[in-house]
């Protein structure tokens, strides 16, 4: 079907991956047909492909592990060293698809039962279908640059976070609630912008950002939302029918010190030598940030007492946009349509959000939004999140 690809060269990889789920029956032909679908059977001593050549374009290898050990399948450049595409960790009996855009040329295929050694290799030829394949620039260099750029952003945000957190903690400890309240949302935006990175350190997120409802029976509550509740103390009706007991001066000091210490730990970790964020983690992070908005912020569940959800909302979107932007060069080359859709929808959401304020000048509180306004915000969040969820597949299908 290469001609179809000429007519619609921007068919997203994801769509092709889905069509590839249709079981295909290998033909006797030595060249793959039908949209570049190939099957691979990996056993202890064989790596059997349904074809030894395929036309250039998007190829789908459905790799079945017919052996008894966990296996991997690689498409290697002719030098046998450079990995063009790979699928790993396929348990015995399982099948997994490898979808890749492949340019004309000579390649090697390799199954690696047991995941050791050079694997069982064979030659594989990709003929020229006339379909333009993949980016023309040096993707590897672009991704390396994207990772460096994103790491710098993370360090900058966490740097601002520790500064703001110290000022917030000092005001709260000193009993200056007015100042603490004014610093709460504007400090948290630095956290919300890079939250997936903090979440990747599994222990820090619950220490810093756990909501009261997330607690296990008997678990000690620490972090931002403990202090939030103490700064915006609920009525008994909003507190499960129980009168709220304010924190003592001593408890305040402990809560504030914990907050600073855990944030310092986050700062240390992102500044540790060797800290990096892989390209797929950047794009997954963008998607996760929109998920955060969709499930926590647009519903007003995140900031149950302060109702400053729109700050978090805007910061999550900021963080997702930066993640997208550092990868934008790659996206524009590989799927210009996706890039265009994302640009449009980021802009639409920003416009709508701007009607309620800004991080710099402040937002209205969530409890002043009407149901229709919330619904309109949610619609734009979902409209952006859906295409954003294809970012990783686009970026990693090199």
């Amino acid at each position, binding site marked *: 079907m290469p001609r179809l690809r000429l007519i619609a060269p921007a068919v997203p990889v994801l769509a092709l991956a889905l069509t590839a789920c249709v079981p295909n029956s290998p033909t006797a032909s030595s060249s793959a047909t039908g949209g570049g679908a190939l099957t691979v059977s990996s056993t202890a001593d064989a790596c059997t492909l349904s074809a030894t050549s395929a036309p250039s374009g998007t190829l789908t290898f459905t790799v079945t592990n017919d052996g008894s050990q966990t296996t991997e399948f690689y498409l290697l450049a002719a030098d046998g060293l450079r990995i063009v595409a790979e699928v790993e*960790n396929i348990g015995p009996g*399982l099948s997994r698809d490898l979808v890749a855009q492949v340019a004309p040329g000579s390649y090697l295929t390799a199954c690696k039962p047991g995941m050791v050694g050079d694997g069982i290799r064979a030659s594989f030829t990709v003929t020229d279908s006339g379909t333009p394949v993949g980016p023309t620039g040096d993707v590897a260099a672009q991704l390396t640059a994207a990772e460096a750029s994103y790491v710098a952003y993370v360090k900058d945000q966490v740097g601002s976070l520790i500064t703001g957190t110290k000022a917030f903690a000092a005001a709260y400890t000193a009993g200056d609630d007015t100042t603490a309240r004014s610093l709460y949302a504007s400090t948290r935006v630095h956290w919300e912008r890079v939250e997936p990175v903090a979440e990747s350190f599994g222990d820090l997120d619950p220490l810093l950002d756990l909501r009261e409802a997330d607690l296990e029976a008997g678990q000690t509550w620490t972090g931002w939302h403990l202090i939030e509740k103490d700064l915006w103390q609920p009525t008994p009706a909003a507190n499960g029918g129980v009168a709220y007991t304010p924190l003592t001066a001593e408890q305040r000091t402990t809560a504030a010190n914990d907050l600073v210490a855990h944030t310092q730990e986050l700062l240390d970790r992102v500044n540790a030598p060797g800290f990096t964020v892989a390209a797929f983690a950047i794009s997954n992070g963008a998607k996760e940030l929109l998920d955060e908005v969709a*499930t926590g912020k647009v519903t007003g569940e995140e900031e149950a007492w302060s109702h400053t959800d729109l700050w978090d909302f805007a910061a999550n979107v900021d963080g997702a946009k930066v993640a997208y932007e550092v990868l934008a060069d790659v996206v524009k080359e590989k799927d210009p349509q996706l890039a265009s859709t994302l640009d449009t929808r980021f802009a639409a959401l920003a416009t709508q959000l701007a009607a309620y304020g800004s991080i710099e000048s402040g937002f209205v509180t969530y409890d002043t939004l009407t149901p229709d306004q919330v619904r309109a915000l949610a619609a734009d969040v979902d409209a952006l999140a859906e295409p954003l969820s294809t970012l990783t597949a686009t970026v990693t299908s090199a």
Partner: protein
Amino acid sequence: MSEGPTTPTTPQDGGPRLSRRALLGWGGALAGLAAAGTGAAVVEGRRAAHPASAASPGLVHPFTGEHQAGIATAAQDRLYFAAFDLTTTSRDDVIALLRTWTVMAARMTQGLPAGPFGPVSGPYDAPPDDTGEAMDLPAAGLTVTFGFGRSLFVDEAGADRFGLAGRLPAGLADLPHFPKDALDPARSGGDLVVQACADDPQVAVHAVRNLARAAFGTAVIRWAQLGFGRTSSTSTAQKTPRNLFGFKDGTDNLKAESADLLDQHVWVPASAASADATAGVDSSWLTGGSYLVARRIRMTIETWDRSALREQERVIGRDKREGAPLSGGTEFTPPDFAAKGNDGSTLVNPHAHMTLGHPDQNGGRHMLRRGYNFTDGNDSLGRLDAGLFFIAFVTDPRTHYVPMQTAMARDDLLSEYLQHTGSGLWAVPPGVPDLPTGSDGSPALTADGPFVGQALFA
């Protein structure tokens, strides 16, 4: 059903298919039908498996027996689940309601109308004693299962409501708050519970509707839940269905064929009553019964749907196509939690949903899950209000549910996509002995007939 234990029968297999009206018209033919059946009926106890396929529309499950039906019964396709609050303060009213419900349930599960006249007979100036929407429909494998909540025994302040406080089993304690719980009180709890399951949703709704009608003045529905697409198999003859995340659910579920495991993990043993007796509580009425845990688990469908297949399989711990563990094999291959991939981490994530729910990770404890998918329309943001209505039957929730749910709510990768919005725990008394029959041979209401949970009120 005065002939003692019977196996389920499938009328259309061995003769003309009979509608409710036909059965009614035939009068006492039902018992004979059940006994004659397909000619393949084998007399065996209720403890035995019910091997018939849940898809048979004419399937009839016995109502009476050692255990209530609707637990080890092969899971039907549809659910109507209703929790009731008692409005009466009279113990006699409660007994009268349970006696009436028992006879009605016994009749409806056999494909008979709720009352002796049926939907289109009886005095012309009286409302029919059956609401009629199940006319012409077969029994559709209907089972009706009853349970008692803690609030039947004591109120929130601990006061004895019906003279039953001394009969409250220790296992019927309030479930703790689990991490991320977002429970709606209007979808939680209830003094009594009715689980109606059938292969036809109209048959299940008909059952609850008629029971609710009979309860007016004594009890009202507190909340109810419709379920479709059973999410568990409870028989090895059933194919594992898929939940709304698109994954097979309940692969490692307890099956009715495992009588030993049911005794160990589902039915309440006599030893539980002995333990309660040391605390001065007589809970012997529950021996041979079970506990029903229900959780309305909303799924954040939209964010799940935009997760990569890699993420979905990592979170579940199984492959989506076959349901095989990521360590390899086919659906029923035991997972190898130690098998490692090339990066040194295990192929099955230690926090995958399958890992945390697996008996190997829970001290060998099993649950009999019997959940259903649900969708209750959309929320105010246009998102599906959908998920899984989790039902499990266990021998003791303190050992067989609370520890697992505590670990899951805290550690399960899937919990990011879940929100528990409703909850309930009920003690399910054992089965009911054979009921007195009327002149037409069908179960009839008498002043002293046996009823579900009778031993509790003895």
